[in-house]
């Protein structure tokens, strides 16, 4: 019994040390959404239980190691203790209760996280290899930056044009995979930003070569600033087809793979490409003109330039109108050195 009390004291001391240590450590990013509040509360409960259970097992282990260890010259065996059924039942039933309670808490917090605000701001979030596009259907605004008003729930309708991506802003805590497919595969993620500031959305599901760089800025602003931004965006469609083309190219992730400065990325650079003669994979040659660029956007795999992977999927250009493609061609034409 004396040993047991000492070991229990050791466990208590280790638990306190563990909890204090975890409180000192930098463990979570800034908390910037309503959803994060419940999640962080559950985290801190988890961390305390982890500290206690780690101390419980390790404390008794350390006590046995240091106090009961074999003494020099002793060759006898330990006590013949085969087990104890009441103890076994105890440490089956108590943990069972604890995990059931934890699951219950987990379900409750999940309920809070998923709470629906019928007035939520709708944003269509489209993931493509390897960029994000944000469309505000109620305002006819398309952007490569996710701008959200503070303290208002946003429902992000997530979809992908190619492979699986995942939408994650660490400061918001919540995460949701972004799936390719028809409208049945669109997934909702609800976020209520609570802190004005600048964040980054990071793709969390491995999506190929440039996965690490599939990020986009997220800006949380006051409601009035949000309205101003929307108006600016609506007015910001340039008159010049070249500039419009540049905008479409940015919004549709073209520039993730095609550089405009001559450097080699996943696809051919756009610098000086218009009018040039390129060798195709099958050995034929093509003059890069309006028709070829149009085809390469609509049916990318048809004729691939030699030395490049057929990485582009038809879905990428699907939502581009013929007029927008004409703008992009004008933009490519303008890229001369």
């Amino acid at each position, binding site marked *: 019994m004396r040993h047991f009390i000492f070991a229990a004291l050791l466990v208590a001391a280790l638990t306190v040390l563990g909890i204090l240590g975890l409180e000192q450590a*930098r463990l*979570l*990013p800034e908390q910037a959404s309503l959803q994060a509040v*419940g999640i962080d509360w*559950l*985290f801190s409960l*988890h961390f305390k239980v*982890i500290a206690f*259970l*780690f101390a419980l*097992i*390790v404390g008794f*282990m350390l006590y*046995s190691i240091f106090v*009961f*260890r*074999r003494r020099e010259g*002793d060759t*006898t065996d*330990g006590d*013949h*203790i*085969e*087990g*104890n059924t009441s*103890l*076994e039942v105890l*440490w*089956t039933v108590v943990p069972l209760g604890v*995990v059931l309670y*934890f*699951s219950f808490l*987990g*379900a409750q*917090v*999940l309920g*809070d996280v*998923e709470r629906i605000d019928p007035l939520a701001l709708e944003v269509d979030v489209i993931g493509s290899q390897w960029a994000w596009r944000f469309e505000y259907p109620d305002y006819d605004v398309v952007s490569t930056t996710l701008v959200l008003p503070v303290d208002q729930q946003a429902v992000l309708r997530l979809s992908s044009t190619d*492979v*699986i991506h*995942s939408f*994650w802003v660490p400061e918001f*805590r919540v995460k*949701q995979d972004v799936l*390719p*497919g028809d409208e049945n*595969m669109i997934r909702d993620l609800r976020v209520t930003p609570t802190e004005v500031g600048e964040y*980054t959305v*990071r*793709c*969390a*599901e491995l*999506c*190929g*070569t*440039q*996965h*690490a760089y599939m*990020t986009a800025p997220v800006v949380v602003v006051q409601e009035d600033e949000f309205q101003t931004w929307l108006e600016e965006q609506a007015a910001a469609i340039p008159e010049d087809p070249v500039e419009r083309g540049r905008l479409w190219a940015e919004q549709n992730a073209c520039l993730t793979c095609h550089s405009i400065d001559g450097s080699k990325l996943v696809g051919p650079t756009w610098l000086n490409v218009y009018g040039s003669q390129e060798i195709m994979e099958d050995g034929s040659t093509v003059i890069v003109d309006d028709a070829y660029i149009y085809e390469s956007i609509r049916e990318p795999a048809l004729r691939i330039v030699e030395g490049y*992977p057929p990485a582009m999927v038809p879905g990428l250009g699907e939502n581009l109108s013929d007029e927008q493609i004409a703008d992009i061609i004008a933009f490519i034409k303008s890229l001369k050195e």
Partner: protein
Amino acid sequence: MAIFSLGLFTGLLYQIVGTLVGMGLVMLIRLLMGIPVWNPEPVWVVGMLFGTLAFMVGTGSVDDWFKWAKGEPTTDEHHSDPRLTGLKKYLALSFDHKVIGIQYGLWALVMITVAGSFALTFRTELAAPDLQFLQPDLYNTFMSLHGIVMIMGILLGVAAMSNYLVPLMIGASDMAFPRLNAFAFWLNVPSGIILLSSIFFGGFDTGWTGYPPLSDQAPLGMQMFFIGVYIFGLSSILGSLNILVTIFRMRAPGMILFRMPVFVWTALATSIISLTATQLIGLSFQMVMFQRLFGMGFFRPEVGGNVILFQHLFWFYSHPAVYVFILTGLGVISELLPVFVRKPLFGYRWVALSSLAIALVGFFVWAHHMFASGMETYLRVPFMFSTLLVAVPTGIKFFSWVGTMWRGKMTFQTPMLFVLGGISVFLLGGLSGPPNGTVATDLHLHDTYWIVGHFHATMFGGFVFPFFAAIYYWFPKMTGRMYNEKFGKLHFWLMLPAFYVQSLGQMQVGLLGMRRRIADYDVALGISASQMAITIAGFVIAVSVGIFFLNLLDSAKRGEVAEANPWNSRSPEWQLPSPVPEHNYADHPFEVLGEPYDYGLVGSVYTSLDPVPEPSATD
């Protein structure tokens, strides 16, 4: 060329020829069909499959079956050439479960070393932000291969321990199907080669999970990954079948299930998982293979396929699979603890049955890998409950180990150090699990380095530490010589703290926003110092494993000759001479008279096997 008489090298020669024949066959068919002769994907895939068959024929592992089919007699001889000694014995075909066990072990160590060097390569890249020397595609290939090759290495290590130990522990003279045993082992060689060959076919950038549509677009290396895993899965299924039959049919008189050494219980539980779940990963990979080869559309959204379906099929195996890794390791811990504390295993029946309970519950938790995947949302809460339930039987094991240690007269030889280290690391791994299990917190943790840290802690605690413990512990049994204790301890004291730094570091950077499987990370996250620490810790682990290898190589040749039972264990294998006679207990039949772990009970016996007399000094 004497070297080509060894099974391994004949097999490799056959494999090359077989691959070429298979490739030629496809090209011929394509020629006759009037389509372009060269299309790398089908040509290579069929070539690799033919190469595997040819390898199996070349090793001679199917010879006896052909003879039986033709009605010709075969011998009961274990070895293709009984005169072989040393390492050569392990490069040749043998039906002896002890040789096969060690073959598994050696192949496991090769695979683990290869996978570890992949990790060191990309850990070096991650030591600092920005890309230093690895291009993203190569980074992704190394990262993916690290995962799958490690998994193979671990499963090989599991098979090594089960093959070597199960027959010895239950008093059998060999496995139930020795030829099937050899067949299952040799499958792993072409499987590993094909898997690693993916580097030369453009690699693959999907991680070991191979989720479509990404795996549908990946280079040809993807197919090599699928074929390699597929063949490996076949080996797992055959091997686990063999273990189950051996356990149920080949026990010594009196060896009732509840008197088996507790390791055998874990082998039983893991074999049930491998036998019944492996098909699902095979199926899911085969479906993507067929998508790529025949244009089928199971997971292709543009033709109505569903990308989530793959994840269900994949995780239905791949979650229980991790219990295959850890249960075996936990079995080693439960087996070794009583020997080194000189006390009975606390609550033997509870420990034995908790393995089956973990295996059973493990079948109902797979979707916790998919909380953020976009599967039906109502599935998440029930899977959260079932997932957390795993903590209950796992807790029984921890509490029973503590009960075993309490008042035990512990000694601290290398195997025991690895057991104790393993318990603490597995505890860290286990306790970092529930935050992933509750859906709300998992939404933050999913696909971050927290998961990487959690998973590595479970793998190191549940497999790596116990595997090293097992190698040190049974080294004298396998070789008849002792390892070097000083270097064994050095190995441990380097690896344990380094591992804690690595794992806790991974968990911390994950919480702070470091995603999994990225070649480069954002300086703004403020995690650069931790990344450097993780990389350094990784290299310290590598150095410690290097010391382990040197110790093993040197001790196998020059180590002190071991006593018959250096650990004073009650287990039957230690009552035999070391190394064990070819047919185990054929000349030492025994009966089970008592309980396996009655340490401290004066006059108790476990088996009736006569102890082998100590060799006298003049021998």
